[in-house]
């Protein structure tokens, strides 16, 4: 006990500088806790309670609501299985995951949906348990990994099939949290390979390719995403060819195109940093083995480059996920837009924007923090950041 007090005194009040910092930190903490408590005591959550469905799936018509559940089941199975297969989570991690899922379920389950939610929870637990039974045998492990990777690649097509099959709701009706996640998945799914291509192009020795790639990356990065989205809505149709009705493609598809282009530019920059960090000896050795450009890139350079920049990449992806909230400018009702308009629904909700935005912020925060924790785990396992 004595040692603890001694340590405490040393750390917090050891020098004048330390003391000042400790006092400042305490003041800041006190101030924040005070205002949060004040907010909680004067808040009315009815505006969120009534609009839970709107927040999660936007304007999707009630008759098509059933489509959302299979998507949730597939996604939860995939995520839990992947966590177990590649994650080797400790009990603490599992506790946090369980806590997060419970909080979200408690906030968003209405009396009509609790059966569905219960099924999803059961599938989560079930998938986790099943995966842990695979055991130590390598062939079973590899098979499992292959199946999971295949499922991840097929996830987007599966989601689209479920949503569109049998005269499903038009994409402009998808909204809320669902829309943000779908847009983020597509933006990352298409933007990442494209970004790799542009990064390689920019690092190429052929001046023509290099200049064109550089112009593309710098142009896209130069303007804010809001401006590009507005451009996509009004300007893009005038530039698309008239035949096959391409120029009347839905706004959601146009948003996906622009978001993918934007992600590819940012990813290209990050990967370029990774490419620059590879020792020249690797490339020289590959050349001396006569590997050819394609093989050299795919087998030697890219795996190392991407490994090095995975934290920065995941940080970019988190940014893309949050930027999908900018599609409100295209008249799409995404999660943030819902949060901003629900206080106007009914005169009794006037002025309750803080509550609505709190919930929106919480949803964004949960996904972002999971991704950033993932990146930390990857960082640790790759051994980056140990001095």
């Amino acid at each position, binding site marked *: 006990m004595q040692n603890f007090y001694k340590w405490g005194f040393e750390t917090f009040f050891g020098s004048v500088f330390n003391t000042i*910092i400790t006092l400042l930190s305490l003041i800041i*903490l006190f101030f924040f806790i005070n205002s949060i408590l004040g907010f909680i005591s004067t808040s009315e959550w009815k505006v969120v309670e009534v609009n839970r469905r709107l927040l999660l799936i936007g304007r999707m018509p009630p008759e098509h609501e059933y489509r959302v559940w299979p998507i949730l089941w597939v996604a939860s199975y995939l995520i839990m299985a992947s966590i177990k297969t590649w994650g080797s989570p400790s009990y603490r991690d599992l506790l946090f995951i369980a806590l997060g899922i419970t909080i979200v379920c408690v906030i968003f389950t209405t009396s009509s949906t609790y059966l569905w939610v219960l099924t999803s929870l059961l599938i989560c637990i079930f998938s986790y348990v099943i995966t842990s039974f695979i055991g130590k045998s390598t062939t079973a492990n590899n098979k499992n990994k292959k199946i999971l990777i295949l499922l991840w690649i097929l996830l987007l097509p599966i989601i689209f099939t479920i949503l569109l099959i049998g005269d499903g709701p038009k994409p402009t009706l998808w909204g809320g949290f669902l829309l943000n996640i779908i847009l983020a998945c597509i933006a990352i799914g298409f933007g990442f390979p494209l970004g790799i291509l542009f990064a390689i192009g920019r690092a190429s020795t*052929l001046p023509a390719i290099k200049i064109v790639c550089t112009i593309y990356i710098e142009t896209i990065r130069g303007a804010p995403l*809001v401006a590009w989205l507005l451009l996509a809505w009004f*300007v893009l149709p005038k530039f698309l060819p008239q035949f096959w009705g391409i120029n009347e493609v839905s706004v959601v598809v146009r948003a996906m195109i622009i978001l993918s282009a934007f992600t590819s530019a940012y990813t290209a920059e990050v990967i370029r940093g990774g490419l620059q960090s590879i020792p020249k000896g690797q490339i020289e050795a590959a050349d001396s083995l006569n590997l050819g450009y394609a093989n050299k890139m795919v087998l030697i350079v890219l795996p190392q480059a991407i490994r090095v920049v995975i934290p920065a990449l995941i940080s970019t992806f988190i940014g893309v996920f949050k930027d999908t909230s900018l599609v409100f400018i295209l008249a799409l009702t995404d999660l943030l837009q819902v949060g901003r308009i629900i206080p106007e629904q009914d005169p009794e909700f006037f002025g309750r924007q803080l509550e609505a935005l709190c919930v929106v912020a919480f949803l964004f925060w949960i996904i972002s923090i999971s991704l950033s924790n993932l990146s930390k785990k990857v960082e640790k396992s790759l051994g980056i950041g140990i001095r």
Partner: protein
Amino acid sequence: MNSIVDKLYVLSRSQKFRNLIIQFIFLIFVGLFVYYLISKALQLDITLGHFVSRAGFGISHTFVVDYTSNDSRWFAYFTGVVNTIRMCIVGIILATILGTIMGVARLSKNILFSTISYLYVEILRNTPLLIQIIFWQIVFLQLPRISEAITFKDTVVISNRGILLPYASSTENGYGNLWIGIILIAIIASLFLSFYINKREDIHGKVIKLYNFKLSGNIIGLIIFFTIASISFFILQKPYDIDLPSLYQNDKGTYLQSGGFEFTPEFGAILFALVMYTGTFITEIVRGSIQSLPKGQTEAALAIGLSNYQTMTLIILPQALRSIIPPLTNQYLNLTKNSSLSVVIAYPELFMVSRTIMNNSGHALPVFFLILVTYLSLSLVISIVMNILNRRVTRIGA
């Protein structure tokens, strides 16, 4: 026949030749694509002619420029650009300072401090910026109302309409600009002088002494600068005067503020939101850079008796700078572009002004291209400046 084909075959094996062909094909496709775009673009109406007509709307923040609603739309747009630049410069400086402090704090031994830094990064980085802007606006609105404004003996006025600080205003005797010019020249001259004197001391060991008190180049430069500035100030008959803010009510009871430098809640809200948000990213960058340095550096520094502060500023940060600058440039560009979200809380920067113009005039396309060009130029300027810094910092060492 055979020999020609053989020659071609040999040629095809040559890397240079193949490169040329690949580039040729690539350029053809790109050229077709660009031509298609341009031919379509020429069919659209992209004139900015309507920009010369009267703007007809007011702008609440006019910094340096004197804008009234009778001016042309070009001037309105220019006011917006000035507002954006003003916010970006202040934001970049503050965000860097905050990010560096928090980045170092993250690695501090004071657990309270490093936890605050950790919480700061985790909470603010993962929340969308729009929500943070609205939150800060609400915070700033909690300042006292104008009828109960806090004043400190006529020098500072604090209310929820803004914080007014003393400022300098020109006394209209015509020498204002001349004095500014002299100041700029004095800055450059004293910088060169101090640089030269420092170099002379480093290389030749010659030191300037005044009564056994060593004067370094920095001090000499500062002295020279202040001397020139004050002498010219008085010679030119005090071209600038202190402008004290004042709060008063006109005869109808409206509270009016005048004078001084106004720090409005809108500017404050968007500034704080941007600084805090970008600061989280800079924190992570700084932390990553410091952690990537070999531990031996810190140990050696402590071993020769440098204090923690000296280790950080003299040894660690200068080396960390090498890997900080490229991602830092990225964050500065992000800050510049994120400033376009300020329409939410009535800060009239260029994106908001251009949307008002778009709506009033109805021609959206030319305004888009104008916005694109403006943001591209801003990004270019920042990139170039940071590139110069980057080259300076990475010029030594592997």
